[in-house]
């Protein structure tokens, strides 16, 4: 334990004193978030097309419609439910609201009414903002009519569009975290190759230090790095882009750690096939690029062509991305959480097994 602490401290100092890699380690998530944040947040004057399904003859629904129309930036379109649903699916609507036929006489008997709101789950963040606006609108109307609270309940339902519309930042942010964890893990393998190439492993191999201690300390450093990056990414998401993290601290941390160790062991598996840091880097790049684009961390899986889907379903990043999205921002699950965790654990075990089997210290 004393030896482990010493090696860990040495490792940590080595990492912290390497200014340029420390800089990139800290800057990488920041740069990514800002690039994606600017692209996806949308900015300035924007109008939201709100689909409204109603009976035009009903005076109550007419009142509500007028209230909605009075919101700046709202463009209200009236239509049949099916048509509006399709428009939402095509990304032509921000939300679709269904207003039930209610007679004014019915309003005072302490019954609450369902206002159904349909929105696109890939535009979580925008939808949340619009929903709160709509809730306010209804509150206003409510107060005008009765002065009594809790008359209306706004209930929501989401759809998964079958092709990509634009989607918002709350979809991207967990993706950036997943990407960061993947890279951190895979490049952990490269670090081992560097230690090997520099002869540090050999140099320590002549001492009584068990080499597994060195490896353990490497892994611990990686895990700490993963948590630091997670913190940075979430911190910026929350403070700069007003993101709300729905998952609890332990849920998020737990999944981040599972993701990190899965990709660390995947990195160690990959370097079993490399003879030098150069070839290792190429192998890792060859693996990480397809994963980056096929995992659904930046584009919903639904929009990908069918023939590529088996690949999508095979790669671990798909499940880490989906899991993080669910836990962090509460997107509609692509897979169930337990399935995501199970696949990650399976990947962890497989790559750990291969890494141990083909591990080369020299």
């Amino acid at each position: 334990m004393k030896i482990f602490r010493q090696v860990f401290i040495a490792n940590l100092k080595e990492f912290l004193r390497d200014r340029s890699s420390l800089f990139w380690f800290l800057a990488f998530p920041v740069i990514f978030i800002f690039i994606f944040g600017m692209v996806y947040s949308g900015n300035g004057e924007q109008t939201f097309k709100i689909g409204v399904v109603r009976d035009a003859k009903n005076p109550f629904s007419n009142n509500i419609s007028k209230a909605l129309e009075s919101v700046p930036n709202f463009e209200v379109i009236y239509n049949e439910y099916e048509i509006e649903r399709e428009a939402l699916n095509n990304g032509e609507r921000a939300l679709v609201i269904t207003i039930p036929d209610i007679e004014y006489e019915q309003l005072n008997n302490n019954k609450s009414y369902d206002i159904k709101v349909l929105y696109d789950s890939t535009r979580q963040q925008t939808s949340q903002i619009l929903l709160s606006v709509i809730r306010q609108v209804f509150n206003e109307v409510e107060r005008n009519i009765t002065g009594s609270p809790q008359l209306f309940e706004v209930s929501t339902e989401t759809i998964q569009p079958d092709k990509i519309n634009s989607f918002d930042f709350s979809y991207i942010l967990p993706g950036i975290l997943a990407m960061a964890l993947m890279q951190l893990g895979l490049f952990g393998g490269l670090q081992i190759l560097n230690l090997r190439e520099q002869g540090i492993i050999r140099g320590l191999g002549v001492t009584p230090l068990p080499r597994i201690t060195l490896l353990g300390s490497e892994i611990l450093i990686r895990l700490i790095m993963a948590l630091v990056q997670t913190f940075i990414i979430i911190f910026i998401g929350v403070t700069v882009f007003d993101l709300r993290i729905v998952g609890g601290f332990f849920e998020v941390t737990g999944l981040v750690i599972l993701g990190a160790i899965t990709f660390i062991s995947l990195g160690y598996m990959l370097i079993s096939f490399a003879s030098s840091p150069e070839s290792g880097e190429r192998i890792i790049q060859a693996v990480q690029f397809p994963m980056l684009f096929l995992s659904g961390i930046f584009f919903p899986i639904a929009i990908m062509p069918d023939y590529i889907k088996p690949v999508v379903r095979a790669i671990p990043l798909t499940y880490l991305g989906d899991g993080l999205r669910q836990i962090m921002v509460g997107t509609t699950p692509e897979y169930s959480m337990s399935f995501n965790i199970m696949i990650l654990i399976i990947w962890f075990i497989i790559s750990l097994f291969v890494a141990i089997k083909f591990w080369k210290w020299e």
Partner: protein
Amino acid sequence: MKNSLEVEGLKKYYGNLKAVDGISFSVEDGSVFGMLGPNGAGKTTTIETLIGLKEKDGGKVSILGYDPFLEKDLKEIKKKIGVQLQSPSLFPRLTVKEIVNLFASFYPDPLENDLVIEQVGLENKKNERVISLSGGQKHRLAVALAMISNGDLIFLDEPTTGLDPQARRQLWDVIQGLKEKGVTVFLTTHYMEEAEKLCDNLVIIDQGEIIAKGSPKKLINEYFEEKAVEFNDPGFSNEEIRDLKENLDVDRIGYEEKLNRFILYSKDIKKLMTNLINYSKSTKKEIDDITIRQASLEDVFIKLTGRGIRE
């Protein structure tokens, strides 16, 4: 007297290359043992195989009574030895003091950190990072890391290669200090004078095989009772060189190409000198910068292998 290290028929092959081809030797407790040979002779491979960094292809080894090819024994061995590898690779961003501390923590009974740093003459570099050290300083740090183990047997792989003369002498003092403490030292070198000065016993190795072994004195006596006379080449023709050998009663003629100097070896140095001067007069070739010396290990090496030791 017991032996700290016993090696019998050790073999290490890389495909067709016989890097170490059946060498045997033993190292007495408390002695300094040298392995001498040119680059690529198999010295480093020998050390790396001995201490379990490489698999052997044959032979038996005993280090302090343990077998380094048994996992369990190797663990014990590593606690009791110190090793300096030829290309010292360390965490480049740690300071000298930090890395010595780190290595000290690996051993059950290490030496005092400051003492070791002082012994290798790095006390004023204590707080500098490894990356900022010169090659020679890195080398001395590597020796310090081998010493910190406080082991009974220290392996030093070319500890003085690349050092300036002053640093080399400093390191010799360190090695002699180890010997005085009763530590057994196994070192490799391609410096003749170093082996001659430091070693109680040595082997000369070439192309993976031992070509001579014994004490430096014994080797010199065995292979060279002669003395050597060196002088600058006055421009002898091939015929004159042949005459030189026949007329002057010379045992052997060497020629150092880089310096353009002849080396004549003979047991009767007086007779040789007289003859040489007479020959110079008769051929009207002026011979200058003459030095007479005892045959050195380098001469032994040239005789044994037919080539110079520094390549």
